[in-house]
C-alpha cells in the first residue's frame, strides 16, 4: 500500500479499495469538484389514486431488485431503540445477499448482532458511525473492506457528491401515509426529527418508508416528502422510543463533571459570549446537560435571551425554551421524549436536517451562525487536534455525529472532558485518531483548568482577568501524567480498517487495525 501524508502529518493511503484518497489540506480549503449525484428516476405512469403500500416484507423486497454488493442505508433517530436495521439486514441475509455496504448515519449497541453478518460476509463494510461491538469488529479487521466515518454534514455531502451512492434507503418513520409522506413526531414510536434521512430520500435509487404509524393522507408535517418515496411498508413496530434517551436526562451528580460544566458556563460569560441574541449548541451527556442548565442560570441572571439553541435537545433545553431564555430550538435530533413532545407541540421548536445545519454544499449552513458549541472528546493533543472516534487503546467506539461540522462552524468551540478517565489521560502528544483539526478547536476545559488555543488571542484577552484557572496544554499534560503515569503505546497493525473523512471528503486520518 502506498502512503501519503496530509497537512496534519497523518499517513493516509493513496488509494484504498479502488478509491483514490484526497489528503486533508485544511479545515476550509476548497477541494470540491463539480461532481454531483445523479439518480435513476422514472416517469410515474400509473393512472388513478396513488397508494405505495406493499402488503408484506417479501412483496417489498421482491420489488427492490436487490443484488449482492448493493448499498443500503438507515438513519439513527431511534438510537438504541431501533428495530429496523436488524430486521432489514436479517431479511436481506435470508435472501442470500452478500457483500452489502451498510450506510447508517449511526449504529448503537442494539445493532451488535450485525457482527455475525460481517463475519459471514453478508456485510462487506460499514460507511457510517459505529458504536459498541460493531466498532470493535471493525477495529479488529473483521470487515472485508475499509469502513468510512463521516460527520452528519459530511455524510450529506458524500451522498450529494455520489461518494456514497445509496441503492436502497430504508427509512423508519413513526408516522407516514400511503403516499409516503413521513415524520417522526406523531405515532406510538415518535422519536422527534427524522431529517438525517433527508439526503437518503433525495438521492437513493429506491426509497422505502417503514412505519408502525400509518395515518390518513396527508401526513403533516412532511419531514420526508412522499414525492421521493417508492414504497411504504407497515410493520408492527419500528422500535422502542423509550430507548432514544441518550445517557441520562438527570443532571449529573459527579462533582468532576459538575465542576467542568460550571467552568464552561463561567468561561462563556467571561468571554462575553452570553449576550442578547447569542446562540449555542450543547448535546446530551453528563457535562453538556449540566452546562446547558448552568448556562440557563447565567442567561437568566444577566437578563438576556438567546436567539436559538441547536443540536440534539433534551428536557433541559426545553426548560430553557419554555422559560423564555431562548427563542428557538433548531432540532437535529431528540435525545429524550420531553424534546419529542416539545418539537411536536411548540412552534418555536423547529426540525432541521443536516443540509441546513451542517452541510458544506449549502450556501452557508447554520453551524456557522452558532456563537458557542460545547462538545466532548476522547482525546486532545498538544496541537488541539481532537479525537472523538477511538479510545487510547485504539478501539473504534464512537461515531463523529455532528462534531466536525459544529466545531468548524461555531464562533467558539469548547471541548469539555475530564483530564483523565479511570487512569487514561485525555491530553496526549498526538491523538490516536484525528477527527477534527486543532484549527477549529478554541478551548479545552477540564476539571484542572481552561486551555485556550494560542490562535485565539481575543479569547485569552477577554478571560485573562477572570477567576478561571488558565493552563497550557503541555502543563496540563504534565500534571495529568504525574497523577496517572504515562500510558504505554498500544501496538497497531498496518492495515487501515476505517477512513476518517473531513467534512469535504478529504481524508483526515485512518483508524488502524488493533492487534490482540
Amino acid at each position: 500500500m502506498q502512503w501519503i501524508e496530509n497537512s496534519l502529518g497523518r499517513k493516509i493511503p493513496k488509494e484504498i479499495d479502488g478509491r483514490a484518497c484526497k489528503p486533508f489540506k485544511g479545515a476550509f480549503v476548497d477541494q470540491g469538484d463539480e461532481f454531483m449525484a445523479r439518480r435513476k428516476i422514472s416517469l410515474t405512469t400509473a393512472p388513478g389514486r396513488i397508494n405505495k403500500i406493499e402488503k408484506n416484507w417479501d412483496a417489498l423486497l421482491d420489488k427492490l431488485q436487490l443484488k449482492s454488493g448493493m448499498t443500503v442505508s438507515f438513519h439513527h433517530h431511534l438510537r438504541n431503540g431501533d428495530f429496523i436495521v436488524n430486521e432489514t439486514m436479517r431479511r436481506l441475509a435470508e435472501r442470500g445477499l452478500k457483500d452489502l455496504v451498510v450506510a447508517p448515519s449511526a449504529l448503537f449497541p442494539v445493532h451488535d448482532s450485525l457482527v455475525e453478518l460481517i463475519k459471514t460476509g453478508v456485510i462487506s463494510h460499514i460507511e457510517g458511525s459505529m458504536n459498541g461491538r460493531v466498532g470493535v469488529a471493525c477495529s479488529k479487521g473483521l470487515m472485508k473492506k475499509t469502513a468510512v466515518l463521516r460527520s452528519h454534514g459530511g455524510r450529506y455531502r458524500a451522498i450529494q457528491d455520489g461518494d456514497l451512492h445509496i441503492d436502497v434507503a430504508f427509512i423508519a418513520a413513526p408516522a407516514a401515509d400511503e403516499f409516503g409522506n413521513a415524520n417522526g413526531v406523531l405515532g406510538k414510536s415518535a422519536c422527534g426529527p427524522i431529517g438525517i434521512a433527508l439526503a437518503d430520500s433525495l438521492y437513493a435509487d429506491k426509497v422505502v418508508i417503514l412505519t408502525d404509524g400509518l395515518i390518513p393522507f396527508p401526513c403533516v408535517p412532511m419531514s420526508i416528502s412522499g414525492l421521493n418515496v417508492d414504497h411504504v411498508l407497515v410493520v408492527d413496530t419500528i422500535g422502542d422510543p423509550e430507548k432514544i434517551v441518550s445517557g441520562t436526562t438527570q443532571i449529573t451528580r459527579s462533582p468532576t463533571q459538575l465542576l467542568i460544566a460550571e467552568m464552561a458556563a463561567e468561561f462563556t460569560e467571561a468571554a462575553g459570549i452570553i449576550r442578547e441574541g447569542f446562540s449555542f449548541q450543547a448535546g446530551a451527556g453528563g457535562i453538556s446537560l449540566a452546562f446547558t442548565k448552568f448556562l440557563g442560570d447565567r442567561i437568566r441572571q444577566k437578563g438576556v435571551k438567546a436567539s436559538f439553541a441547536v443540536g440534539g435537545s433534551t428536557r433541559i433545553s426545553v426548560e430553557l425554551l419554555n422559560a423564555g431564555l431562548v427563542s428557538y430550538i433548531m432540532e437535529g435530533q431528540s435525545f429524550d421524549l420531553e424534546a419529542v413532545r416539545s418539537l411536536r407541540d411548540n412552534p418555536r421548536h423547529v426540525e432541521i436536517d443536516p443540509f441546513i445545519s451542517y452541510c458544506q454544499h449549502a450556501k452557508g449552513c447554520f453551524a456557522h451562525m452558532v456563537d458557542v458549541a460545547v462538545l466532548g472528546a476522547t482525546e486532545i493533543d498538544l496541537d488541539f487536534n481532537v479525537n472523538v472516534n477511538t479510545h487510547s487503546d485504539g478501539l473504534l467506539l464512537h461515531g463523529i455525529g455532528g462534531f466536525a461540522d459544529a466545531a468548524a462552524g461555531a464562533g467558539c468551540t469548547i471541548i469539555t472532558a475530564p483530564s483523565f478517565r479511570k487512569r487514561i489521560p485525555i491530553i496526549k502528544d498526538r491523538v490516536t485518531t484525528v477527527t477534527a483539526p486543532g484549527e477549529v478547536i478554541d478551548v479545552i476545559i477540564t476539571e484542572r483548568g481552561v486551555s485556550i488555543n494560542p490562535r485565539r488571542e481575543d479569547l485569552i484577552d477577554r478571560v485573562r482577568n477572570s477567576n478561571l484557572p488558565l493552563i497550557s496544554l503541555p502543563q496540563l499534560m504534565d500534571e495529568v501524567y504525574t497523577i496517572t503515569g504515562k500510558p504505554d503505546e498500544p501496538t497497531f497493525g498496518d492495515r487501515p480498517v476505517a477512513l476518517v473523512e473531513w467534512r469535504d471528503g478529504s481524508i483526515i486520518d485512518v483508524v488502524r487495525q488493533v492487534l490482540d
Partner: protein
Amino acid sequence: MSMNSIFQSGLEGKSDLIVSMDASVEGLTVQVESSVFRLFGRQIKEAVEKTLKDLGVTKGAVKVKDDGALDHIIAARVEAVVRKAGFATIPKLRVPSREPAVKDRLRRSRLYLPGNQPDLMINSGLFGADSYILDLEDSVAPDQKLDARVLVRRTLEMGHLFFRHCELIVRINPLSGPYGRDDLAEIVPALPHILLLPKCESAEDITEADNQTAKIERKYDIAGRILFMPLIETVKGVLNAQSIAAASSRNIALCFGAEDFTRDLGVTRTREGKETLHARTQVVLAAKVAGIQAIDTVFSDIADEPGLYNSAIEAKSMGFVGKGVIHPSQIPTVHRAFAPTHEEIEEAKKIVDAMRKAEQTGSGVVALGSKMVDVPVAERARKLIDLAKKHGTPGLEGF
C-alpha cells in the same frame, strides 16, 4: 486449599482494584487483569511487584482485577492484603513534606470523604472546600478498617498531589474502641494537619489522644505538628464541652455532630434542627471560652439546597464559623452563607472610618447616624472586614 488462606482488598468500581492473595501457595506469582491493560498492564504489574518486594513478601498467589486504579491505590490494596495474610506489619513509614497547620483560618466547609473509596479522593482537592476529612470512622465498615487506614495513609504520603494546598483532616476511630490506636500509630506519621477525634466525652479523652500523639510525633521527629478537632456528638460530650475544649493546646476547633447526638438523646433529627439548638449553643460557647473555633454539623439532604443555605445562615448567626459538607455541590452554598453580606461590609467600613476620624480628633465616643459606636462594635467591624478579605471581597485595600 482452605478458604481462610484467601485474603482480599479493594472494591469493585472505577479507579479501584481488587487484590486477592492465596497465602497457601508456595512461591510468588502475580496475575493482572485490567480494563486499561493495553495502556497500563505493564505498569500495574510493576507497581504490584514493587510493593510486594518492599514488604518482603516471597510467597503467595496474587491476583489483581484492576479498573484504572492509580499506583498509590494499587500499593495500598496490595499492602492491605499482605497484612491481612499476616506476611507483613506496618511498613517503615516516611513522613511526607507538608506545610504546618494554621490554627486560625477560614474553615467554612469541611468535606467528608469515605476513607475506603479512592475515586472520591482523586479530584476532591479541586472542589474548593476549605478542609477535607478523610474518614476512617463511620463511613468505613468494620471489615474494611485496615484497608481504609492503609489507603488514607498512602494518599497522605503523596503530599500535595491530590489535595494541592488544602487543609487535610483525618477522622480516626475512637481511641476507646478497637481501631483508634492503630489509626493513630499509622496516620500521625503521614502528617495530616488535623485529627478529627470522634465521640469526645471528657477532657480525659483529649488528654489521652494528646499523650499518644505526642509519643508518635517524637518518634518521627514531628513534635507538635498535629492539631485536634474534638467532635462533640453525645449528651455527655455536650455537658463537658468546656473542659474538652480546654484540654489540649492542640485543639483548634470544636465540632458538633447532630446525627449521633440526636440518637444519644433519643429524638428524631429534623430539617429545622430545633432539637439540637441548645446543644449547639453550648458547643459554641465552650469553644469561644477556650478561644477556638466552633464548627457546625453536616446537613444531610444534598438535594435540598435552600435547606442547606438556611441551616448555614442559622449556624453563622449562632457563632459557628463553618459546617461539615457531605457532597462537593454543598460547598458553594455554604461559602455563600458564611460570607459577610454586602450590607454588613458597607456598615463595617463606615464604622472603621468613623473610628479612625474619632482617633484623629481625639474623641472617645463616635456616633454613626443614630447609633453609638463603642469599642466592641468597632472590634466586630474590624473582624468582619478581615473575614471579608479572606473571602476575597474586592475594594478593602485601605481597611
